[in-house]
């Protein structure tokens, strides 16, 4: 099953490699991993999307908690949560495609943030499935380049992860 795990860790050099190393050493898979400092510069917030049986996910959270730099771990999938991912897509936008791409970007509530004679760069935010849907909706031959950040997640309502 797919799980989205959030963690707060000390913003120390090498902290990311401890997490990445743990996943590779123990054979856990990482679908995506995002990390950046929080409003408290001494803390980093990381979101990891992974897949595994319940036993594997239990081990992953335990092993993450065991890392000395990790302050808090939460499996967001345990409750209701929101996840968003940002994607930048550079698409072909010449001739007939120019109007078509504008329309598709609008339908998906994307924004065109860079324009050239032959291309648009579209910024799109949403759950991963929405980004996938956009890529499927347009002509594959028109896609020149895609960059995705991987998911960031947060609990809904009063569900807060803080120290």
């Amino acid at each position, binding site marked *: 099953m797919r799980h989205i795990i959030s963690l707060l*860790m*000390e913003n120390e*050099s*090498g902290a990311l*490699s*401890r997490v990445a*190393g743990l996943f590779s*050493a123990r054979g856990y898979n990482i679908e995506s991993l995002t990390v950046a400092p929080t409003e408290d510069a001494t803390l980093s917030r990381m979101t990891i999307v992974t897949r595994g049986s319940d*036993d594997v996910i*239990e*081990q992953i959270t*335990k*092993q993450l*908690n*065991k890392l*000395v*730099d*990790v*302050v808090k771990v939460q499996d967001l999938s345990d409750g209701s949560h929101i996840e968003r991912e940002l994607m930048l897509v550079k698409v072909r936008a010449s001739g007939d495609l120019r109007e078509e791409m504008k329309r598709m970007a609008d339908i998906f509530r994307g924004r065109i943030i860079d324009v050239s004679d032959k291309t648009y760069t579209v910024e799109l935010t949403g759950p991963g499935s929405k980004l996938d849907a956009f890529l499927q909706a347009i002509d594959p031959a028109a896609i020149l380049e895609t960059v995705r950040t991987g998911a960031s997640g947060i609990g809904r309502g009063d569900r807060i992860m803080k*120290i």
Partner: protein
Amino acid sequence: MADMELTGAEIVCSCLRDEGVKHVFGYPGGAVLNIYDEIYKQTAFEHILVRHEQAAVHAADAYARCTGQVGVAIVTSGPGATNAVTGIATAYMDSIPMVVISGQVPTAAIGQDAFQEVDTVGITRPCVKHNFLVKDVRDLASTIKKAFYIAATGRPGPVLVDVPKDITQHSCVYEYPKSVSMRSYNPTSKGHAGQIKKAAQMLLEAKRPMIYTGGGVVLGNAAPQVTELVRLLGYPATSTLMGLGGYPAPDPLFLGMLGMHGTIEANMAMQHCDVLLAVGARFDDRVIGNPKHFAKEARRIIHIDVDPSSISKRVRVDVPIVGEVAQVVDEMLKQIKASKEKPDQTALKAWWTQIELWRAQDCMKYDRESGKIKPQYVIEKLYEVTGGQAYVTSDVGQHQMWAAQYYPFDQPRRWINSGGLGTMGFGLPAAMGVQMAFPDAAVACITGEGSIQMNIQELSTCKEWKLPIKVILLNNGYLGMVRQWQEFFYEERYAESYMTSLPDFVKLAEAYGHVGIQVEKPEDVEPALRDAFGKYKDRLVFINFLTDPRENVFPMIPAGKGLSEMILV
């Protein structure tokens, strides 16, 4: 005075002094020259110069295992650090509290492929509990304090502090922190009271109980509590390789070691119990074999461990209790004593009758009439000659298993071996660590001709420090455990497991200034041991026992099989 500044090198030594360190094992080199200059000037601790960094780390590791204190090793950058890695990984696998201080190239040179530069923090990351690179001399003392704290608390483990050379030259005001507080590291010490109560109840209701203890009992100083619990209940107990000595092995309630080379009675009782209490043990592959085949009968498991990630990792458990084993078992004892319920004596009697039937198969018997020196016999004699009171270190292989099987340890911290990583070359440096901690104790290093050659250079360190270690070499001319697997599972194709061109070990021992003895006949075994521990009490004695090359370790459970699928002699 209060504001006097110390250099980083002085700070390293001051921290070790203030931490109460008495012995440091190490090897100098360019990046740690400043530290060594300060070691030269101080008197708070002794530095033991080894002949290879791996040995420094093993010695510090064994020092920790036998004393319960944090072991300390110092190595230089680059090859010093990489040589230390095997030792660090060994300590990590067995959860040994240790601090390793490694030199690093100056901060400005890091990343420049400088001479003797290696990414030590990166290389050691997967085999330490934690590691640090010190980038500011003002962080040095607090980092070393944290290192000792992390190493010794929770599930113990090695912690490495990488110190660039310029940091050892910079200076700042020295103050050693009195305590450590880390928001990201707060190991659980007290077990959950409700869970303990539930566990006590479950234990009292058991019809076929079993108590399985591991290295955590030794590391957590819980041997007295566990011993009291087993005796109070009258339940059968077994121990892993790492837990030996946690319960007195000569006691009839003890069924011997379990696992791949465990006794029939221990393994069968594990398979057929209805309530299993696991204390500081982690159900690893050498202990329970294939988890799919483990205890298929309906049974409930109580698991006490200080590390939550050890619980339900390989086997699902019913009552997990996270906490320090001594505290948890203490609390459990209180609950059991206060309870009106008592163990079901009728059921217990029937269970013991069954266990005694398994025990009667006498799985540890071996041929005593062969006229050859049987390795088991050597260990039995060693036990007799030392009155069971020696510190026994071992290397890895058949001799290690025979030592575990035929030397019944009756107290913790006497059996020092590399269980998790299985590091050949551990035994001799480990014996050095033990002998440094206990200069007057009898210390035996049980080894094979393969293992001993992996750190044989340490005979020189032993000479320098006049360490009266007794090297018990069970020389069968083979990498015995490899040979055994090849005999059983590779149709006797003995690929690269035969050791030709062995040195003359007697002359070798003498070359290093020690006493060498060769024993070729069974009747000479005991006299040689008596000489070693009597006439040559104060000398290192290296005894080369030429043992039966065909002897195998029994019982044996092939890898991947269940605990009931034993191969017997």
